[in-house]
């Protein structure tokens, strides 16, 4: 394998990964720098937006300087996480590392200071006993003032147009005036320190995958327990390095949910339920208690009596459930969504109406545990989502409604429509919700009368 001299990477990607602040954008700054560069020439012409270009450059440099530590930590962590990626190409593995880091820590939701402290925390966890000792990000002797004639004579820094103009206009010699010249990047001590750190990190032995998985499971259990039991004011347990390693390796423990559970959506929790219930046989699959926690996060109570689960799963689930206090949450809805383009995709969690949203295949699939008797008393009803031109009868057939009714005999069944369709509404006996904003609105539209107790 031949190591490349450089790979395609620019400061814009640091913004894309939310490692440095996004404003001003790298694209704008690059253009500003292109326009400003000719001003190094003594006979350069002023232009309208040079003030704005100056501000862009100053702002961007300030951003880089204040995020210098974040950049260094991020590069080291991405290089470390890249070792867990399963792709072949080096650039792709590095990209996987950056993506796992940025999305796993949800950096876009953090302020500049929080980003730095989060990256520092993870770097310390990944590289214990390692001192980075980074100097500030400023080039050594960044501005070497040179006489203006020298600066103008330097061909590498000339702009073709202005250079020519200066030759034509240069009858009168300009008075010698200090004009800055660009410094050499190689002289940057920040870069030297970072490269040294990277060299040492690259030869470190990676942790064993079993250890990573075990620790990731432990921290997930702690995080979910804290989320389900904690009050809103309590600080949540943040994502840890093992979660990020699993994420880079594309393992279920790293991709099932966002590391910051407060940012997890209705959809995320529903997917976590499906993943937790799925029997995959994979050694890295999610434990059953993920599905139970997902039900709790959706607003249902956490199931405590489990049938048909394997002994190990039951034991682990019971241990998890024992830490969650019992409550009396409201009844909810089961929504059998469409496989693609579901109108529920953007719904938010409704505090007053828990909603389990999944495809009928996922609901009917034999999972790790049988929760039929659990759902029966906890549902106001089942709503079958209809596609645009579908009729209720076809939707019922597609959703296998007879089997659903067998499993949930006393639960009412209605439909979820995208637009008003009087004909379809009549065929559905009016038990429909039309383009509701959330589960609560769906319930009030479809089941205006309370469900029988």
């Amino acid at each position: 394998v031949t190591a490349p001299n450089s790979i395609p990477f620019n400061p814009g990607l640091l913004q894309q990964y939310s490692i440095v602040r996004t404003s001003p954008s790298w694209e704008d700054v690059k253009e500003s720098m292109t326009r400003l560069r000719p001003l190094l020439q003594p006979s350069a012409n002023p232009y309208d937006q040079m003030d704005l270009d100056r501000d862009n450059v100053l702002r961007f440099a300030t951003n880089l300087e204040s995020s210098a530590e974040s950049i260094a930590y991020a590069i080291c962590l991405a290089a470390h996480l890249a070792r867990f990626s399963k792709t072949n190409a080096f650039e792709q593995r590095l990209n996987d590392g950056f993506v796992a880091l940025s999305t796993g820590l949800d950096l876009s939701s953090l302020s500049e200071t929080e980003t730095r402290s989060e990256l520092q925390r993870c770097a310390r966890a990944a590289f214990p006993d390692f001192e980075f000792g980074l100097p500030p990000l400023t080039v050594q002797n960044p501005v070497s003032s040179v006489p203006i004639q020298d600066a103008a004579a330097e061909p590498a820094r000339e702009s073709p147009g202005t250079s020519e103009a200066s030759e034509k206009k240069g009858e009168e010699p300009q008075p010698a005036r200090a004009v800055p010249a660009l410094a050499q990047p190689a002289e940057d001590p920040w870069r030297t320190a970072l490269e040294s750190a990277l060299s040492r990190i690259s030869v470190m032995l990676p942790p064993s995958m079993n250890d990573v998985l075990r620790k990731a499971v432990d921290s997930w259990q702690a995080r979910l327990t804290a989320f389900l039991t904690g009050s809103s004011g309590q600080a949540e347990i943040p994502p840890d390095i093992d979660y990020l390693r699993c994420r880079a390796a594309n393992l279920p423990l790293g991709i099932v949910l966002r590391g910051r559970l407060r940012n997890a959506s209705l959809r995320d929790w529903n997917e976590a339920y499906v993943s937790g219930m799925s029997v995959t046989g994979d050694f890295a699959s999610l434990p059953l208690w993920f599905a139970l926690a997902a039900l709790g996060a959706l607003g249902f109570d956490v199931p405590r009596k489990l049938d048909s689960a394997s002994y190990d799963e039951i034991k682990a689930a019971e241990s998890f459930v024992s830490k969650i206090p019992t409550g009396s949450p409201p009844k909810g809805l089961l929504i059998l969504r469409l496989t693609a383009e579901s109108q529920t995709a953007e719904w938010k969690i409704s505090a007053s109406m828990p909603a389990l949203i999944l495809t009928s295949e996922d609901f009917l699939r034999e999972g790790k545990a049988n929760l039929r008797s659990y759902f029966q008393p906890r549902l106001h009803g089942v709503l079958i989502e209809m596609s645009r031109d579908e009729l209720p009868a076809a939707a019922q057939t597609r959703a296998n409604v007879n089997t659903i009714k067998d499993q949930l005999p006393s639960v009412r069944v209605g439909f979820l429509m995208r637009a008003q369709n009087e004909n379809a509404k009549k065929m559905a006996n009016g038990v429909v919700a039309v383009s509701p904003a959330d589960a609560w609105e769906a319930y009030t539209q479809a089941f205006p009368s309370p469900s029988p107790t």
Partner: protein
Amino acid sequence: VSRSSEMPEAPPYGLEYSPCSSQGGQRIKVLARSANLELAIAELTAYVSQDTAVGGGRSCLVAGARGAGKTTLIDCACEEVRQKNEFPRLIRVRLHGPSLLSPPKPVATKDNPTPPEISVQEHVLKTLVVNLYQTAAEEMSNAFEEYLRDPMPEGGESAAPLGRIRESDSTARLSEFAAQLRLTLDGAPSAATLRYFWNRAQALRRGVLLRGADTEQGVKEIVALASAADAYRSCTGTYTQERKDERSAGDKAESKTELSASGKEVAKAVVGLASGVAAGATAAALNQSKPIMALAGAIAALVSMMTLSYTRTRSRETTLKEAITFLPDTTVSALVHRVLLLLRRFRQAGLVPIFVIDELDKVADPIEPLNDLTKSLKFLFADEGFFCFLTDRTYFAEIDRRNREKSNTPLRTIYNTQMLVRYDTASVREFLKQVIQPFFVTGTSSSITADLQADAEALRYVLTCRSRMLLFELSQDLRSFTGTEKRLNPAFQSPRANLGHQLHLTVQLAIELVLTNEFVANRISRDANFAQTIYDALYHPVNLWYADQQEVDCSPDNLIKKIGDLTGEPLALEIPDQKFLQTQVKALLDLLTNLPELERRLGVAIDANRLIVADKGRLLDSIPTAISLLKRVPNEDNPDIYQWNYNRSGIPFEASAIQDIQNNQGLWAAFATIAALETSLPQILARRPGVGALLSGVPAALSVITSLTNFSVPVGGTL
């Protein structure tokens, strides 16, 4: 053909402006909520839904700065009440305040060379009548058209007669018939003409306003509309002063009008009938002058005629033989009673007029004329009708002052409700949250959708700042930002990336931060009038910014004077209040002079839930911390002077000379840092351990594996 000259296609995602929301399949206009709006809705609902037998008018004084949203507030309240109360139905009668308080000069004629002056009261009452009729006629013709188009009228006299019309009349003809009524109403037709239309539409019994109404509804509608038309004719001077009945009416005439296009024949007949029963018990009960008695008699007779004609008895022929002379009485007392009568008639028919007297802030010195008017017509303004007076804050302050001076002023009893229109930033943003939303196609990446959400949130702050809390400005701005269909113009990420937007976002966040101050929040919650003054003070620097005034003089005297200029009269505040205001404005300005500190404090406020934002990271990221937006430039005389460095578009007030740029050492240092990092990053990331380092542990590992591969377990020999 080169495509380079064409506009690039817009991406399938962005932000959209949806002024209406969907509720249960119905499109409903989204309103900016405020305590005043809720109060107005409550007052209107109470008035609209009160029993017709129970009197009780209300007058609201709605005050606010120009563009504060007074008209919008009343319009929104009326709209919401209309949506919630199908019957009786609220109708909004708009009156132009400046015209109302300026009666026209009487025109001298040959017969009357010195006509008397028209009093304000007479002019007001006539204007009320004219506008009331026009609004009611429009409402009724809309209802009529809707009624004709409705394919399944519920509870009509029977589906068959309407069905008969429908069989013979195509949709186009039905529309034409509705349009014919609309045009006829422009000429204030007689009761007979109206009856012709209602009869033809089979709506004589159950009317057109409400499905499932009682069997008197149609008659009530005609009575109300005919009474108003009659009054309208009187007030506009088009009424024939003398009219005699003709003997052409009867069943024969009525059958003819079934085929008639205009209903003229029946019109004449019914007017004659109505006029013929002039001496009515109603008039006697009212103890009114003769013309009023004539009118009242006409209305009473009309009702009885309707019933009779419906049953087709011959008794009507005997009543047709009488004739009267109708002389409209336009004296104030007669007009007052006529207006009162109309209000009752309309309420009986299911229409509840609400009078909105707008633009009073454009009347120079409206205090005394308005006070005189409201006092003289108090029993109309406060006891029977619902009147909204939309004025500026000067009038409001004056009323407030007088009420404070005397506990029992007449004004106190005239204006049941007095409200100063103001919105807080949270309610404006909540409104914007409902109307500005991201849109994207399925499959759009989560990073783009998150960016869109952040764009929407940032744009809401930007618009709030740009509006300076004036709803008029906000709605203008929303219109100017809205491009094709509902799509908003700002490009993807530009609400957070464009410097002009960033500056607005920053200023608005700074204002919000000041508003979260415990003392400020406390004053705002306790004193609505002072709350508005706090907002005025905090937006004062923004107003200067918008006037391209670079300097912000924050000295107490100047600040109070400028806020007074905004309200139209000097601001009378106690010294502690003046100091309080100055402290808050200075706090705001100091925050804007140090954007990194502003960002830090915003972060703390957000973490403590004092400020609620959806995407703290992206929002705070958009604050241009590296620039100096505002600087403090104290001088010997005044330490409280600040200066904007950038205008509201994000362009520096003082443009640099090229030498400034060339000699800016910091700039070129920054330039070098960026250039160095741009070069370094790809090289740093490409670093990989050398082959030697990479393979350093491999030989040992290989030997272990090899030894295990060749390892054989002796199992012993066979026995």
